[in-house]
């Protein structure tokens, strides 16, 4: 286990390197750079532009730049943001927290809702299946947009804050904060729900017929105990994998929602950084995202390993 963990980490490091290198290369390949807009700054002479550019982002061969970046990234320093004149790490830290909060709330909501709905049987279950299909067929951005639009229409009935409001009034107050989170988190949850529902329903259906579950049923165990102590563990393996995938996409899943609801997260920052060609911010953001993906995989494997005692005794 330890050794295989080590190999996996080593492999993951390789893919992190590949991601960052590719990111660098692609950034170089994309037309325009951060300083392109400065060229339209009236009264900024070409010499000044050149020296600004030279100062902030010395043009050197990509290999050298990449090596320098790796060296500083090892110390946790992802460089300076060209646009914000500040260290990338400070820029990203709080936004990553915000994004994790939103995605986390959204994913948790989807899982809870999914668990609740998938315990239904019979006709309600068929309706849930239909509902999941319907949700599935609405593209996520459209779903978020519809939600926003509905919220706006219903604003008079139940005012939900849209986007961030004045910080003194809300961020300090927990209830306000929850209200603020509600709408974007719901949009995220609804987008993710069909996937979760599909796997939960599939998993539960399969687990219903597992020998141990049938046995528990025949022993006459109370349904609640059967559900939580027999069906759930039985269905858990694929769900854990899905959960791991979900962790991996925590940073990237909420992009649309963040932009639409004005949530101050990484998604917006990264999108703007991409459009502005703020190299270091993009590379660091992508790096974090890749890291989370790898960690999510690892976590899922670990959970599987903890959950299923049989996996702990695989043949060497």
């Amino acid at each position: 286990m330890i050794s295989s963990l080590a190999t996996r980490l080593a492999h993951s490091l390789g893919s992190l390197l590949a991601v960052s290198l590719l990111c660098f290369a692609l950034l170089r390949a994309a037309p325009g750079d951060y300083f392109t807009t400065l060229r339209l700054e009236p009264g900024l002479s070409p010499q000044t532009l050149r020296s600004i550019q030279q100062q902030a982002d010395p043009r050197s061969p990509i290999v050298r730049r990449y090596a320098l970046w790796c060296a500083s990234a090892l110390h946790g320093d992802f460089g300076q943001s060209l646009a914000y004149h500040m260290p990338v790490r400070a820029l990203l830290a709080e936004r990553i927290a915000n994004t994790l909060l939103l995605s986390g709330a959204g994913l948790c909501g989807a899982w809870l809702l999914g668990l609740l709905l998938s315990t239904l049987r019979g006709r309600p279950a068929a309706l849930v299946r239909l509902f999941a299909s319907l949700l599935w067929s609405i593209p996520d951005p459209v779903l978020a947009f519809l939600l926003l639009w509905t919220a706006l229409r219903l604003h008079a009935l139940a005012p939900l804050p849209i986007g961030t409001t004045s910080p003194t009034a809300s961020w300090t107050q927990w209830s306000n904060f929850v209200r603020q989170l509600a709408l974007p988190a719901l949009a995220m949850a609804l987008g993710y729900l069909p996937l979760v529902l599909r796997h939960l329903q599939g998993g539960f259906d399969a687990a219903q017929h597992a020998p141990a579950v049938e046995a528990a049923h025949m022993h006459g165990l109370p349904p609640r105990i059967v559900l939580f102590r027999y069906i759930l563990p039985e269905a858990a393996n694929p769900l854990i994998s899905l959960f791991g995938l979900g962790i991996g996409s925590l940073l990237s899943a909420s992009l649309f929602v963040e932009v639409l609801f004005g949530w101050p997260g990484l998604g917006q920052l990264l999108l703007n950084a991409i459009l502005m060609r703020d190299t270091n911010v993009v590379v660091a953001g992508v790096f974090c995202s890749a890291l989370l993906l790898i960690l999510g995989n690892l976590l899922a494997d670990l959970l599987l390993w903890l959950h299923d005692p049989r996996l702990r005794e695989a043949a060497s």
Partner: protein
Amino acid sequence: MKAAFVFPSLPSARVALFLAAFAFSAALALPACPQALRISSLRGAPGGHLSASLRAEPRTLNPVFATDSASRTVTSILNADLLHINRATDAVEPALASSWQVGRDGQSYLLHLRHGVRFSDGSPFTADDVLFSFRVYLDPKLNAPQRDLLIIDGRPIRVTRLGPDLVRFDLPRPYAAAARLFDGIAILPSHLLQPLLQAGTLANAWTLVTPPAQLVGLGPFRLRSYRPGQSLVLERNPYYWKQDAGSRPLPYLDEVDFSFASNQDAEAIRFTAGQLDLISRLTADTYSSLQKLSSSNLIRELDGGPGLEFDLLLFNLNADLAAHLPQAAHTQTWFLQQPFRQALSLAVDRAALVHLVFQDHAVPLASPVTPASGQWANPALRPTALDLPSARRLLADAGFRWRGAALYDRDGNPVRFTIIATSSNRAQSGIATLLAHNFAALGIDASVVPLEFRSFLQRITQSHDYDLAVMALSAGDTDPNGNMSLWLSSGNLHLWNQGEAQPATPWEAEIDSLMRQQMTLTDFRQRRAAYFRIQSIYAAQLPFLSLVSPNMLAAVRAPLAGAAPGPLDPGMLDNIASFYWRKGP
């Protein structure tokens, strides 16, 4: 430190000597009491909170390095300038300088600083701060974007301290409307930033993570808190130096907070939901949807008429195409012919652009000088009206022929080109679509290629790989000097043919000389005549087509008083100090 930028404080005896040497048109008045600026017409109610939004997060709070619109808006509220252009009247007015005099030669300016003025941390504002600020702006190591504005003919403006509240600026040569230069040049607190300048860390000072207490300015508000990605809260600067008619210190508002909306839609949604008190720089469709969305007595829509911004169709007339861009060079052969450009201009239905793209919230243009420039716009020029027969005639005379409906040039090549536009800008891609439609009426096969913003700019400013481009430019000032970089063949907004060492054509040479000439003239009429002449040359040559100038559209919560859209930065928030909430029902 280079000697040119060092301004040793002079002994007082020599100040007197200097003063004697000057013959000023007005006597100096030096009152001893704190000298606030009183706005006599203003009587508002104090208190209240304003929620506004920014389209993007400010990238820095350092006025020296702010280049993006969000940073400039915030820094302009946190800071103050020596002289200020009144956005409503377009006249230069006293600000931190209570009065100023121009030397007879038009080359030296004597500014009397308002005394008793304090920074937002309570420390006094003196001539040293002015000297320090200009030293920063002119420091070649810092590369402040304003630096090039303050360098005239390769020589920097010289700043001399004549006393604790008297400063002299020497220009290398006479400079028309030099007082307008001071607008927007924020005065920095030397007591805080001097050590940083010496340590060489000024470029990284005053970022978004700087503690609010260390961000000190002379503006109506000061920073209270910043939450990354969420909001920026400003609070009333208790030391602000303006008063209203009742000697009540400004600003009225206690607090202003900016949230960040990534796009106009998000902004409009929040405004409609009651979370924002004002939004500005609206597009026509958001403006009209706001009109329909809102219950009308809660919101006031403001149409400020055309601003300094204008949409244009750029011809690629760059001289460097032949070598490596054969395709663009091929289409360029048509654009280089003046009749062809003229014919295209005649084929453009500007009225339809105004109607369909801007929903009538725009005006058609004859030249890049928009109506907002007031007296500087040449009244003799009229926007070109749609005239297909004339266009066809021009083309036929230039040797173009039609086969079927399609247009062919003299050599039998079909006339086809691409129009690039910024895809994120709905108005510009709409314009491009309509232009292609218009040109199709001449038998030209024009296809629209929407491009992401920086890819678009890269083609225009660097690779020059395009045929035609739809874009928007905004004049920096109503004054012709603000358009220097557009007109001068060496200017960086001289986009149709960039990086010319010498003017490529006689008419460009004439524009160059006229621009230089008007700059040194001090007589308004003479300057205006020169500028009119430039516009006429433009209208005859049409190096690009000025299409329309969109109106400045904004909306505010009805009880908010004092807000009006303005053509210059930072637009509506310029006089935020005099915003107040109307009391009453």
